[in-house]
């Protein structure tokens, strides 16, 4: 649904463009309590593999050690690697990644049992922050997001109000990135907006 609003779509239309515009223009009283926005067009790579050579090759190519402890992350200046399972990671590349770079990574691991897939468009990221961020998220997930349990650098695949998400905590303000399927993003955004009303609106 594209309306006549003066939105800059020169970079393309993101899954949440329409909703984020309305949200930013609406009456928000205190953004230090809770704020959210969509992180546009981050590059994302699904990475699968398990043998020693795989870890070595990835480390050489990307200059990052993939985390092997469940629900942890590793990062360098450009890439964040999120542990998804014992043989699966999500690489989030900021600001984005082009097809050639992914192809180059695929070629680099093509001789071993491993896979790198460009999934940039499968997920979108909702950035959630503020003093009440944990209170809002806790309305939809049973995971204990308190800093003493979850904390900066932790990630978890779970459901947030029935939507499958990956929650990644960036810092202890706290700030979270919530990766959600592009097709479900609108549903989750609306839930977040509704759940945060008590902290955001007058």
């Amino acid at each position, binding site marked *: 649904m594209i309306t006549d609003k003066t939105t800059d779509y020169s970079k393309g239309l993101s899954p949440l463009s329409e909703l984020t515009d309305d949200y930013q223009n609406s009456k928000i009283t205190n953004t230090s309590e809770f704020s959210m926005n969509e992180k546009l067009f981050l590059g994302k790579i699904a990475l699968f593999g398990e043998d020693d050579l795989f870890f070595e090759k990835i480390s050489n190519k990307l200059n990052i050690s993939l985390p092997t402890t469940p629900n942890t992350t590793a990062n360098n200046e450009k890439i964040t690697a999120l542990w998804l399972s014992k043989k699966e990671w999500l690489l989030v590349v900021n600001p984005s990644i082009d097809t050639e770079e992914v192809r180059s990574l695929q070629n680099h691991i093509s001789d071993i049992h491993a896979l790198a897939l460009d999934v940039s468009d499968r997920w979108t990221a909702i950035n959630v922050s503020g003093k009440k961020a944990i209170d809002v998220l806790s309305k939809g997930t049973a995971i204990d997001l308190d800093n003493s349990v979850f904390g900066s650098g932790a990630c978890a*695949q779970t*459901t947030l109000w029935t939507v499958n998400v990956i929650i990644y905590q960036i810092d202890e303000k706290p700030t979270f990135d919530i990766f959600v399927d592009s097709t479900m993003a609108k549903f989750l955004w609306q839930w977040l907006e509704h759940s945060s009303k008590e902290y955001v609106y007058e």
Partner: protein
Amino acid sequence: MLVPCPWCGERDESEFSFGGEAHLERPEDSCSDKEWTEYIFMRKNIKGEQKERWIHINGCRQWFNAVRNTTTNSFLQTSKPGKNYTDIKTNDN
């Protein structure tokens, strides 16, 4: 209820799916129809502590084995596939 995933730790039960009785052994191809029927359909359905398969479907998507008390619906132990349980007596062994 919280289920202890061997990888992710304790998570809400809504993230998991039940996979039936664990450690069923597939019979040889030359088995009788009766043996095959036993393998496909018949389950012990124990009242008490039972070994089961579970999958963390909305999390790390890994299968694991669990000992669950079917009366109290509590998990006594979970283990990664291929790993042995620590010494525990269940009603099916």
